[in-house]
């Protein structure tokens, strides 16, 4: 499997390369968005890791450009920014998921594996050209692949979960899951169940509606 790492920070580049090599993958690195796009156009990749804060072309723009090149490739965003609005902008640009810094090696490895597997699933189930284009984005920032992944989990478990729990169970980052859950809520696929805790604020739990 080929991984493309786009990050302006040498120490992060090195760290990510080492982790990917440990997992037995090939790594290409790029120092900024422009370079990353060139490398991707030339060699392609199975999974792309993109940093948010970069000179020349920031993460959001890079993700958008990558998507125009390839509608399918999983793009993971590495960010220190925890704000949901930033996450939403990334997802709308076409990012697949996030890895919040600081990230642990095992978590990163399993996340990359998950997205590679999800991407393979959609590729191995060949659909009509027409629906494949539709496949990537149901609406802006929502990919069918990820949506199915989250829906499957909720559908098969049939109990209320917090976004936090879902995020851990499906192996996707919190901001990604939150956005998809909000989408499912709009669609009327899930409902909110407010759970009053012994301590802390009441929590919103989400459950699949039949």
């Amino acid at each position, binding site marked *: 499997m080929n991984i493309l790492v786009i990050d302006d920070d040498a*120490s*992060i580049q090195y760290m990510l390369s080492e982790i990917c090599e*440990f997992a037995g993958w090939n790594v290409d690195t790029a120092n900024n968005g422009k370079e990353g796009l060139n490398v991707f156009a030339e060699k392609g990749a199975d999974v792309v890791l993109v940093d948010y804060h970069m000179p020349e072309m920031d993460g959001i723009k890079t993700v958008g450009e990558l998507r125009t090149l390839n509608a399918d490739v999983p793009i993971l965003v590495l960010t*220190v920014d925890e704000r949901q609005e930033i996450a939403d902008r990334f997802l709308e640009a076409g990012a697949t998921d996030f890895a919040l810094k*600081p990230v642990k090696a095992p978590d990163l490895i399993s996340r990359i594996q998950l997205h590679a597997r999800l991407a393979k699933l959609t590729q191995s189930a060949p659909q009509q050209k027409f629906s494949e284009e539709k496949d990537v984005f149901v609406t802006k920032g929502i990919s069918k692949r990820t949506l199915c992944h989250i829906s499957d989990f909720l559908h098969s478990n049939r109990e209320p979960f917090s976004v936090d729990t879902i995020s851990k169970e499906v192996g996707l980052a919190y901001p990604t899951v939150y956005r998809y859950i909000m989408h499912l809520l709009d669609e009327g696929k899930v409902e909110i169940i407010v759970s009053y805790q*012994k301590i802390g*604020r009441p929590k919103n739990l989400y459950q699949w509606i039949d």
Partner: protein
Amino acid sequence: MIASLMKSWTIWIKIGVILFGVFLLSWLGPDEIGLTDLLISLREGEETGNKLMLAVFLLISLNTVLALFHYIGALLLGDEIGARLNRPWLKIIIPLIVIPLDYIVINAYYSLTYSFSAYALLLLFAILLLQAFEKDRLKPIIKSIICSQLIFGIEWLNEIPSLSQYGFGQGSLSMELKDIAVQVGFEQSLTLYSLTLCLIFVINAVILAVYFSLAEQKWRIKQELHYAQLEAMQSRSGREALYLVHDLKTPLTAIEGLNSLISLKVDDSKIKEYCQKISSSIHSVSDMISEILYDDKKHWCRIKDLVGYVKASRLSGTNLNLKVDFQTDPEIKILINKIRMTRALVNLIDNAYDAVNGIEDGKILLKIKTYENELWLGVSDNGIGITPKEQEKIWKAGFSTKSHPGMGLAFVRQVAKGHGASLEIDSKLGHGTTIWIKLAERSVSR
């Protein structure tokens, strides 16, 4: 409170000025300035207009100098006491009582009689004028200059013969001079002179008062602008600091990534343990950074740890040490943004130190107690306390008892709001103040 007023030397200076005005007549009377000689020569038939005008001018000057002490002393005394006790009405009442008292004392003490009728008008006018510009905080020296012009101007009304019937110039010297003026046939010219001089000085005093209050306002606006610019600069440097803090996560990420990779690559259980320790340290740094960057970030934290953090954060040159009064179990966990809550408490503690500054047995106490499942964090001092009127204004940004713009309590309020906590001021004048941050039940674990 009265006792503390009595201790204030500025009050005594003003009382001294008033008393000085009363006894000044002994050293600076009509005899000393040559007015008596003039009057004698006038009485003896040398009734020239020249001497008359001179005598009138001397009399007015003398009266002005004497009155100046009473009025300025009384006005400034009223101002100060009113300001200190935070009761504005005292600023008007005190002069209204003190000035007539002066005249009663003088008339009882000296053989000369001084009339008070014209002064009633003068007094009212002066006080009203000065109080009108009160909110612009004229400096005492400016007030004195304006006051002296007013007095000098209005004194001339006492020398207008036709105004005698309205109670002006009933003093023995004034009456005599006016009679002489009528005899000499100088009545009209004296009236003209007196009126002209009166108008010139009174108008001038009004113009001065307006001008100075405008200048004062302008200066204040400039000051406020300056503070606003300072604030803007501070917030910009604050933002810069946030970017810097943000960038701290990058090296942390590299450390955490490689650290966790080491853990995957080795079998040595000790090394795995070290990696675990490093990892948890990295995460506590990362959490701190998140708390600095996002005020809605909160973590569960033991009260003990919070207190330790507050103590460690408070860098101060004072040798007072912060005592902590645990009225609850320090192991209880609370859901807080530790960084911001610490800053809020440190702000309160700094204010408390200011409040006990100069007090011999200044005590500051950080109190922690539970009340009906709520957790209260309080900072108390034994300073002078906060008046109820100040308590309303205290939380506003910009309010300060010190010379710099107050932002501390506004920040405390912001932090409390971010934690869904309420604030309470418990203050007794002369005994001290406790400010409580009350964390709601949902932020407290059992």
